[in-house]
């Protein structure tokens, strides 16, 4: 108690730059991820404009390749991942009855690394052109650095450097974020909260964190090798000098496939929470749900070759990975039926969150079934790298993940911001987005089968591809309108006072036991958990709130710090140094990072305390 708390507080912008509070970091992730989502969405609209009619000349050649590359990379790494991290930050500590994550400083560092990595990659638009070798960055297209061939090939040789360095910096952030949540969920659960009482979203966050820790090293190795090939004249992927381009494909997909589950598992978690809350029933088959999640995570590492059936690995490898891929359909099916039977016999309320969540179920089933079709290597010879694949992965990522994320936003918005989003605007948002989504991507299945490869900037008239492409473009615009309605919803409700109650949805898990938005210290007293759906259990027992597991006392809080930002900025600067091969700039950037690390190591910071008296006036509404 010797430490004063007033001296450690910042306000305004400095508060946001130095925060280590998981709730504020969650909001930062949401804003940054939302921003990149809009950027990636704009790129998607431009792609669809070019493809609306055959033989158009709006964005052709390398410009188009830059658009598709940036659309994919931005959406996966800088939109979907951070929004998932936003929810993990905003919700997981609350669901486990913790006051923060295990390493608040690392949490802030993870955010700034991701954010500056994303900014670095997007600065490419203003510095000569964006990466253009696809989000998969297949070598040797991605290793071309010979300036003379660049002029004749109209290939933007610098672009891929932004991809290599942006993803490396952001990747460190994601990796430490994953470690942080693993430790948090293992160590910081409230008394009585055993693993088999964890809310489903926390379970999926747990598995996703494990997948991040195991999968990200593969892409890190791949990116480092690519960086060596590009910047230092290495030959990892150069066949002419004894390298092998298929090596990149393996490393990329050893990461890339688990990444799909890193993305979708938290969406499964969100859907489980929402479906259960709005049908007023506990999750059907909770144990099998947990088991299915673990199994999907495990199998997710054994199927990467299904992205490479046409690489030429031979029928033995193709068959083994085909069967492993089909096997994933079983635990996924278990989840689908568990959701349906959670709804069965319930009192289903169609709030916007639940409309998104229930729309997720059939849409995801459609994406999953085309996944099984794609798992057949011989048939995949026809599907591979066509619009059929584009349709499939947008069904699982947009129809699955993005619908899940929107559901999560409407659901947890009051807990994050203390305001409810408008239900009317929410429903308008849903219909535009949902109808637009199916119009955009359903015809693409057929375009692929009818002979349209993916990543093409145009197609010739007279091959029956015109109608499908036009419908697809119309759909993309409807999705755009839906997203704009969502932005209007945010802005218009922002103007209203913070009136959200603690438990607006008749919730079941711990986050609904504390005020909206959650106070800085989350729980005045750590709650005692007496079963699955902890809050629901207390409500059913006639208790108004959770039973505390400790007396009211002074609460220890971590100190804010600017060092996560400066550490990340140092790497950001060094990144530019590497790209332009100015090693002095590399030195300066690394110095900034290392000095920040040094300062972090030598200054003992014991944090600060919130005293009980202060709790009384602030937590009055609890």
């Amino acid at each position: 108690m010797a430490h004063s708390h007033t001296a450690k507080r910042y306000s305004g912008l400095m508060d946001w730059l130095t925060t280590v509070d998981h709730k504020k970091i969650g909001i930062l992730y949401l804003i940054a991820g939302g921003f990149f989502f809009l950027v990636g969405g704009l790129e998607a609209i431009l792609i669809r404009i070019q493809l609306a009619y055959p033989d158009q000349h709006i964005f052709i050649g390398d410009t188009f390749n830059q658009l598709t590359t940036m659309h994919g990379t931005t959406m996966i790494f800088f939109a979907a991942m951070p929004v998932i991290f936003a929810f993990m930050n905003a919700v997981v500590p609350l669901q486990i009855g913790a006051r923060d994550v295990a390493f608040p400083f690392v949490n802030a560092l993870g955010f700034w690394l991701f954010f500056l990595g994303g900014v670095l990659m997007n600065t490419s638009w203003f510095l000569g052109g964006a990466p253009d070798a696809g989000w998969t960055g297949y070598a040797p297209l991605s290793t071309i650095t010979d300036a003379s061939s660049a002029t004749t090939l109209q290939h933007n040789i610098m672009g891929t450097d932004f991809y290599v360095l942006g993803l490396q910096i952001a990747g460190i952030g994601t990796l430490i974020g994953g470690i942080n949540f693993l430790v948090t969920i293992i160590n910081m659960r409230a008394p009585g909260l055993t693993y088999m009482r964890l809310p489903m979203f926390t379970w999926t966050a747990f598995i996703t964190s494990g997948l991040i820790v195991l999968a990200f090293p593969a892409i890190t190795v791949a990116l480092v090798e690519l960086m060596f090939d590009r910047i230092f004249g290495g030959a990892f992927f150069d066949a002419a000098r004894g390298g092998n381009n298929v090596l990149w494909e393996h490393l990329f997909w050893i990461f890339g496939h688990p990444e799909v589950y890193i993305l979708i598992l938290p969406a499964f978690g969100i859907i489980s929470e929402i479906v259960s809350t709005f049908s007023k029933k506990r999750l059907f088959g909770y144990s099998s749900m947990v088991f299915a999640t673990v199994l999907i995570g495990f199998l997710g590492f054994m199927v990467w070759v299904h992205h490479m059936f046409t690489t030429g690995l031979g029928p033995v490898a193709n068959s083994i990975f085909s069967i492993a891929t089909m096997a994933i359909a079983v635990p996924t099916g278990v989840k689908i039926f568990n959701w349906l039977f959670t709804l069965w016999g319930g009192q289903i309320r169609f709030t916007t969150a639940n409309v998104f969540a229930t729309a997720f179920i059939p849409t995801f089933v459609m994406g999953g079934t085309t996944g099984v079709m794609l798992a057949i290597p011989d048939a995949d010879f026809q599907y591979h790298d066509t619009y059929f694949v584009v349709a499939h992965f947008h069904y699982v990522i947009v129809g699955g993940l993005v619908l899940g994320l929107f559901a999560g936003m409407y659901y947890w918005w009051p807990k994050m911001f203390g305001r409810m989003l408008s239900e009317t605007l929410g429903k308008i948002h849903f219909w535009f987005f949902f109808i637009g989504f199916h119009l955009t991507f359903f015809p693409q299945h057929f375009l692929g089968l009818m002979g349209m490869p993916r990543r093409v900037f145009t197609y010739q008239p007279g091959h029956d591809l015109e109608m499908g492409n036009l419908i697809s473009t119309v759909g993309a615009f409807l999705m755009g309108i839906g997203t704009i309605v969502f932005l209007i919803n945010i802005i218009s409700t922002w103007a209203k006072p913070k009136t959200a109650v603690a438990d607006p949805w008749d919730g079941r898990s711990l986050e609904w036991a504390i005020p909206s938005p959650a106070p800085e210290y989350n729980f005045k007293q750590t709650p005692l958990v007496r079963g699955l759906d902890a809050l629901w259990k207390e409500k059913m027992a006639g208790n108004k709130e959770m039973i505390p597991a400790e007396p009211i006392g002074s609460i220890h809080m971590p100190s804010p710090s600017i060092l996560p930002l400066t550490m990340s900025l140092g790497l950001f600067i060094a990144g530019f140094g590497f790209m332009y091969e100015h090693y002095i700039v590399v030195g300066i950037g690394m110095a900034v990072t290392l000095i920040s690390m040094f300062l972090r190591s030598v200054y003992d910071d014991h944090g600060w305390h919130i005293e009980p008296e202060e709790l009384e006036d602030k937590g009055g509404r609890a």
Partner: protein
Amino acid sequence: MWRLIPLFAVMTYLLTGCGDPTLSALKPKGPVAEEQLFLMKLSLFIMIFVVIVVFAIYLYVLVRFRKRKGDNSIPKQVEGNHVLEIIWTVIPILLLLVLAVPTVSYTFKHSTNYTKDKDAVHVKVTAHQFWWQFEYPELGIATAQELVIPKDKKIAFELVSADVSHAFWVPSLGGKIDTNPGISNTLYLQADEIATFQGRCTELCGASHALMNFSVVSKSQADFDAWVTKMKTPASVPATAQKGEELFKENCMTCHAVNANGPGVAPNLKGFADRDTVAGILEHTPEKMELWIHNPQEQKPGNKMPAFGKEAGGKLDDAQIKDIVNYLQTLK
């Protein structure tokens, strides 16, 4: 009802047909593509069964169990149901087993390497940014952009790339395979009909990935043999085209061969006069040929051929380009 609106839109769209018969994987023109379509249909029917079951339960649940006004009762908190859970674990496993058997069998069948088979026609494919080279090692000829094959015969491909990765795809005849630099892949296809099929590159390979088209011409065995003989005979240049031939030798010969006896750094032009396209994408007319020679970058961004037209920074005037085009049309 709301779900039906996009469905109707899609159905109308589907009724317009399943694509161009020379490009669609849904209209197979050879045994490989046919068997692959069988696999697609088999998996599709199994999956449609799954989708129907899920949708039926889903719609029933959403209608039947919606919250009624004034009903504030607490539903029974069901933990799970072992029988149901076993059913929806075992049935999918059985369905997948049904699917797995033909999957594995066709995967092996279609990966058979026929390049050493005496009855198959052996073709060596080399992919370039952004064109295709086809060599027939046993016949001693090479061509580009337009692959000529005899119908009803297995064509055993050996594929490699000269620069970045590409992928070789003729949807009407069967699935694709990547062309990697330094590692060769094999594939076999067969055509049942005399026709010209469309080919596409399906691996992102640079600025003109979208324009890296080729075609496959299947002929009767007799016509194919005649084509081979013709390819082996040098074209005779009529007097009217000699000016063009001179210009061609001066400007084009360093890259483009006009005899079918070997590959080159650019497409082999032997038999060019009989092809259906210029550069795989333009109509085969003198105007388009002039357009192409004048400035190839306008037509196919990023390809390696420099502009020859004076206005585009080259050294040939319009009359000279016309002479070359005149000569090209004699390359039978």
